[in-house]
């Protein structure tokens, strides 16, 4: 029987070493070591041996089993390693090829710039409101201290519509009246939106454009606060430390009125065509809300005071993104737009 076992061992070891793949090795293992395998069959005969021979044959049988198991395991490792090596060799690719394209969209710079402006003022408690684009003459002009036949109307070339008393709003400022009519101070409002003017189109003008209006009213907000906030804004958008300038402006709905300049972002003050060689770029108009406007908003002009400002979104976007001609914004050439993320 010992001889029989040794024969089985030698035969199996040879077969394992010759197994061409994992599947045949698996079959060999079952054929020899399985419940109905050949080694098992031999072992079943041990019971019929004389009692004295049993321990010796049993020890041989265990040694044979161990030898077979070790050989199968070794061969399995070898075959696995070969299989992985084959797979790797077969799967090699040119990793320098470009990747599978993922659809790439783009955000339009107008709403994106509005969002950037709102983010800055949002940190100072300003919240967003919107008003209608087809406005009344009353809201667009009269309540803003611009009566009918007032020469200040020359500041806004207006597009009129076939609805009596209505026009296409020339600025976002009528939103001031609408916010005051629905909120009590303290008010910190931001009003973005589309505006219209009777204006020939060129690199810096369009008959449709976007503005963001700001309004802050309570009992103590001063012109110094206006300066402080606008400086924060300029720093946020154009880099901390960018020089700014506060100078008198004129709007019928603010008194005092302000024009707010930043150091030219193109030439940094040296003087270039972009800043008309002044070294400064005007980015917005502002001022302390005129008492008559406060009255039209339903507020006591003696108790309440505050400021308003208005800026052209295209102008800010031009400076942020180094765009020289605002016609690109409404033209929507995708070669222009796809550069925005």
């Amino acid at each position, binding site marked *: 029987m010992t001889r029989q076992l040794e024969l089985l061992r030698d035969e199996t070891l040879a077969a394992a070493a010759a197994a061409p793949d994992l599947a045949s090795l698996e079959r060999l293992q079952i054929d020899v070591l399985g419940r109905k395998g050949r080694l098992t069959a031999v072992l079943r005969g041990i019971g019929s041996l004389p009692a004295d021979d049993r321990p010796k044959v049993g020890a041989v049988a265990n040694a044979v089993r161990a030898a077979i198991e070790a050989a199968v395991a070794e061969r399995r490792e070898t075959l696995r390693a070969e299989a992985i090596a084959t797979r790797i060799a077969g799967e090699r690719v040119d990793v320098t090829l470009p990747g599978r*394209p993922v659809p790439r969209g783009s955000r339009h710079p107008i709403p994106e710039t509005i969002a950037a402006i709102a983010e800055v003022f949002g940190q100072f408690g300003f919240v967003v409101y*919107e008003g*209608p684009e087809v406005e009344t003459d009353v809201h667009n002009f009269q309540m803003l201290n611009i009566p009918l036949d007032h020469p200040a109307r020359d500041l806004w070339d207006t597009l009129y*519509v*076939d609805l009596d008393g209505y026009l296409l709003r020339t600025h976002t400022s009528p939103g001031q009246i609408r916010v005051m009519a629905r909120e009590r101070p303290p008010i910190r409002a931001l009003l973005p939106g589309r505006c219209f003017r009777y204006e020939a189109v060129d690199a810096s003008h369009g008959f*449709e454009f976007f503005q963001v209006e700001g309004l802050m009213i309570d009992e*103590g907000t001063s012109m110094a606060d206006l300066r402080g906030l606008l400086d924060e804004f300029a720093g946020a958008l154009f880099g901390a430390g960018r020089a700014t300038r506060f100078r008198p402006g004129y709007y019928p709905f603010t008194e005092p009125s302000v024009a707010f300049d930043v150091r030219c972002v193109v030439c940094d003050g040296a003087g270039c065509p972009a800043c008309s060689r002044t070294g400064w770029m005007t980015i917005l108009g502002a001022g302390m809300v005129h008492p008559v406007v406060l009255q039209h908003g339903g507020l006591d002009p*003696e108790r309440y005071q505050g400021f308003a400002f208005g800026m052209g979104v295209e102008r800010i976007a031009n400076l942020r993104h180094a765009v020289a001609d605002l016609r690109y914004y409404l033209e929507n050439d995708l070669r222009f737009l796809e550069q925005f993320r």
Partner: protein
Amino acid sequence: MRVPLSWLADYVDLDLTPEALADRLTLLGMEVKAIERWGSDWRSVVVGELVAVDPHPNSERLSLARVNVGDGTLREIVCGATNIAAGQRVPVALPGAVLPGGRRIERAEKLGVVSDGMLCSGDELRLTTDAEGILILPADAPVGRPLADLFGDVVLDVDVKPNRGDALSLVGLAREVAAVTGARVRLPRAEVAEEGPPVEERLRVEIEEPGLCPRFVGRWVDGVRVGPSPDRVQMRLLAAGMRPVSNVVDASNYVMLELGKPIHTFDAAAVEGGRIVVRRARPGETLETLDHEERILDPETLLIADPRGPLAIAGVMGGAASEVSEATSSVIIESAIFDPVSIRRTAFRYALRSEASLRFEKGQEFGLAPLGADRTAHLIVAWAGGTVARGRVDTNPREPEPVRIPFRPARVNRLLGTALSGAEQRELLARVGVETEPARGEVRVPVARGERPHDVVAAGEEAIVAVAPPWRRDLAIEADIAEEIARIRGYERIGGTRPDTPMPAYRRSPLGVRDAVRTALVGAGLAEVVTHALVAPEDLEAYRLRRPVPSLDDPEPVATPIRVTNPLSSLHSVLRQTLFPSLTGVVLLNLRRGRPGVAIFEIGKGYGRGPEGPVEWWRLGIALAGAATPPSPLLPRRNFDLDDAKGLVEHVAAALGFAEPRFTAEADEPLFHPGRTARLEARLATDAAALGLVGIVGELHPARLEALEIRDRLVLAELAVRGLGEGWLEPPKVAAPPRHPTVERDLAVVVGETVPAARVAETIRSSAGPLLRRLQLFDVYRGAPLDEGERSLAYRLTFWAEGRTLTEEEVEAVVAAVTGALEREVGGRLRS
């Protein structure tokens, strides 16, 4: 306003460089838009002395001048003008010179004589309007000096704001300069040698409308000789942007630029009996104005008339018949004050806005009327000779009381965020001519003027009274005084502080839904566009839907468009009602520029004219055309079609937390392909009774594609989205993932081609009951062994139950119910 600095220097000393002066004026609120070098376009033009002027040897019309330009030689120059004589000094363009307009002067032969340069007329140098004669320079003009040194000037272009009509004048701007530099302002000389008869014997003025003409000052000058103005005057007018006409007319324009007072001069011979009436036009009256237009006069129009009829439209334009001409010998000077609103309306009515009407409509200082008349008479006598009648006609010689504006220094500080003492504030005001007085007792501080004047009573010790100078008609309320104080002190000195006042309550951004839609679609690879709201009327009609997309939380769309009554172009003359025309425009533009594929969206408004006024509604528009994928070896090439747009709609619905959209066929919109268009709606996930999204998605009709020369397809969608105008996303409420195993069954349902997939899915859903948690279509198959006209729709059904494992029997029972319902309701059978 164009301001030649040499002229401004007549009224105030200018010790600053032009750049520094421009900067100071800008910081004072008189923004200098440009600094122009007048004469910078004369190159190599110098003063020459005519040593001899002889006839040209070969021409009777030409002369031959010998000219000394200070370089030690005598140049021979051929000249065609007849006004030259030896001894005169004239501008000489040397060979190589460049004149305005780019004209180059070279040494050239003229009829056998070489001309070594050119003598220049005033017109050639754009210095005067005289193109006939050579410009004769003053006898003391230094020979050889470049002309630009002598007659060049710096012109500031100042943007004077509409509230500062007083600064539309050299004297007004001189006052601003003086406020900065502390220099004194010199008013022009206006004394008149009155050697004629009393003016009453010549001129009578009757005002029928004192409200529209509160003051009329007239003067009379006899014996004028009308001709060109002195060169120096012409140069100044041209530099300031006005064309010289004649000495008399130039005098009135000169005074307008100098003092800001528009003046009109009449040929007195054309004024019947020297009698002037200021009245409204009568029905049917007409007037030929200076521009030789015959104008039918509206009864609102204020006229200067004589007993026979209209002479001029008051404050706007004179009449041709009474225009001062070379034949004029007696002149009436009109220096009047008119109602600003009336002038503005009239100027608009006749589309005749002029330098004069611009100044009248901003209001005029009352006292300018006599000063303007006197100064004009002074200049006419100096330039055109003549004798001035004694005295003036003045219909309202009373000077108005100065405007007193009590203000509180503490309130000024509160507004500006400053801490200036009352004395400092008074000192600043004094620099712009605003005198101050102590307040005696209680005063009424004007806080607001206008419809509802609002005064606050202040005790004398807390207030100061500002006395506005008569030219400052813009000063009326306390805030105006605050602005003057800030302006004169310098806005730059208002420090920047961060507000420490109370914060408003939290408010959600109304842009939340719009932002979520943008994020979803940009993430899906679309480019956001922003297009014009104003479109062409043809496009509006061409892209009109028979059944517009209804609104959800906006007002319903209105079909009547809003039209612009004064459009810049008919291409942009009506407000759009859908996003289709502008989106199609963007697609076409990009395809034509060689883009292989376009995938865009816009969030914008439609506009309509409702019975109660304008209506605006928000919409989301999507447009897809051309290549759906970028060129890549890793992606199959394909073009956009309806399914892409539907997928995007589903994507948006999912991003906003809405239920899956349901599509129904739409075959009845002429804009769209009748077989490839769907109406759609998606309900709220939280409330199946409420819609989150409705709209239309489809491919443009093939006939339209042909007309637009789009080769493949154009897919368009327009959606109304809940909260697009004002809304935000609620955080989703979520369930734990199932802890017990889920069971999946795949069913292939064979139905007729005409049965919509949506009905099959609906039948499965309603018959399966609550255990069915998910239903996904994963395959559509046509062909053998199916019959012609059949298709197989393969669905994966996913089941699970809360808190227990489903039994095989339960699932089989549901599948049996589904199978039965499919057979009954859509004639479907299972394919095994």
